């Protein structure tokens, strides 16, 4: 009896959320494209011969991913987020998933919120080691044998954290721990869009693991879409 009551309340709550979310256009949008100019460093193919179970998953060897580019100078794996102007938000319920597959981190750059659950899983037939190298957050270093349960972790301060696997030196990734939910990670065309921004003045920042970050201010008045583009200077080495 009480249980049913619980369900009813729960469903009501969900419905309410749904209504709030879909209550028409609740604010402006910032969208744009991230590109590079110049010649980016050549990405070398990775030799995984030391880990046959991974090597055979890549008939043509994958290359390192510090600079991933798309058509017409699009720059991928750039985290675009609202660095100032937006209020801090509490972490969403669902976990951010970080997978190790074919001795590669998927995704290479994972953006998630402060205190959001980070779920790390190992899909390979070999042990992996996850060693994020934070400066302000708590550091940990764990290994994950094949077939073992996912590791759940949280970060309580915003930070860009390089991640490495101690067992496979070529495996490097990044965590972007952010204060609010207004963020995007560019891929393919290098485009991004930050929606649902209530009217106000914002600082939009784009961060790239080897090219550093750039910021631009933008003012949203009401329900409009502003375009912001970022151009990074590519280094040959």
């Amino acid at each position: 009896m009480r249980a049913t009551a619980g369900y009813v309340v729960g469903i009501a709550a969900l419905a309410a959320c749904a209504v709030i979310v879909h209550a028409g256009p609740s604010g402006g949008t910032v969208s744009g494209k991230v590109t590079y100019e110049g010649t980016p460093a050549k990405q070398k193919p990775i030799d995984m011969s030391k880990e046959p179970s991974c090597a055979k998953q890549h008939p043509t060897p994958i290359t390192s991913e510090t600079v991933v580019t798309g058509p017409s100078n699009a720059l991928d794996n750039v985290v675009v987020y609202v660095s100032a102007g937006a209020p801090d938000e509490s972490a969403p319920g669902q976990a951010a998933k970080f997978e190790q597959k074919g001795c590669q981190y998927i995704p290479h750059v994972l953006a998630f919120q402060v205190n959001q659950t980070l779920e790390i899983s190992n899909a390979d037939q070999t042990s992996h080691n996850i060693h994020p190298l934070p400066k302000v957050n708590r550091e940990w270093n764990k290994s994950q044998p094949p077939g073992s349960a996912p590791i759940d972790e949280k970060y309580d301060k915003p930070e860009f954290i390089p991640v490495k696997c101690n067992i496979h030196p070529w495996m490097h990734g990044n965590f972007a721990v952010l204060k609010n939910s207004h963020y995007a990670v560019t891929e393919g065309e290098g485009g991004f869009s930050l929606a649902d921004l209530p009217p106000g003045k914002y600082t939009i920042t784009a961060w790239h693991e080897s090219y550093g970050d750039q910021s631009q201010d933008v003012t949203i008045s009401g329900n409009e879409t502003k375009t912001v583009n970022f151009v990074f200077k590519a280094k040959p080495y």
Partner: protein
Amino acid sequence: MGKFFGVILVLITLVSAYPIVTHKFVQPVDISTHGHAIDEQLADTMAEAGLAFVGAQLLLAFFVWKFSNRKDGSKVVHLPGGAKLMVATAFIFIGTEVLALGVLGQKAWADVYFTAPKPDAMQIQAQAGQFAFYFRYPGADGRFGPLHPDKIDEGNQNYFGLDPANDVEARDDIVTAELTIPINREIHLLLHAKDVGHSFYVRELRLQQDFVPGLDLSLHFTATKTGKYEIVCTQLCGLGHYNMKAYLNVLAQDEFDKWLKDRAAEQ
């Protein structure tokens, strides 16, 4: 009970000796020019130590069998010759053995360590780091770019800490994850440790040498058979120690040249 002890010990001795005598467990084929000396040394030692082992165990077994819980009571006798005999035996047999092994051993050891590499030996740098080996070929200019530890960026596969932007020599350096070498050509391997102690061990080459941080050692050897062999780390270096390995790929000269060209293109 004493007899039982004798029997068991004889069994243990014979069973222990069996796999050795029948060569069940032996070192793999030797592909180096110096390895045969080591193998002979190992064989000689095995013969001498083996005899000592079997002899002593059987003697022990026999004595315990014969002289335990004797019916004829406490009438004990002493070994003719006594301690002097024992000391003499030890000195004569083991002494000569020690000398023999010591002297022979020197030769085999000298083959590896007391000879300088020929000037035309091919220089390759091997770097050991947690937990992989990487190898560097000097490239067209035949010179290695200097190392800058602060420049090391594994995510970008800059394992050695090269700085091609500023060092011209570094631009054509070829970095690979497997040690590919031409057959019958002396290789001068320069060992460099990136973080902690590691070791370079190739069974087929009969070679083992530690990488000691801050101390750049080198090895030189000549491979006489083509094929793919495993390089493993034998110095405890951390959690990935078991997984720290690379392949040694011995190719015919022309194949090697082609391989090197392809790698150069990748850089």
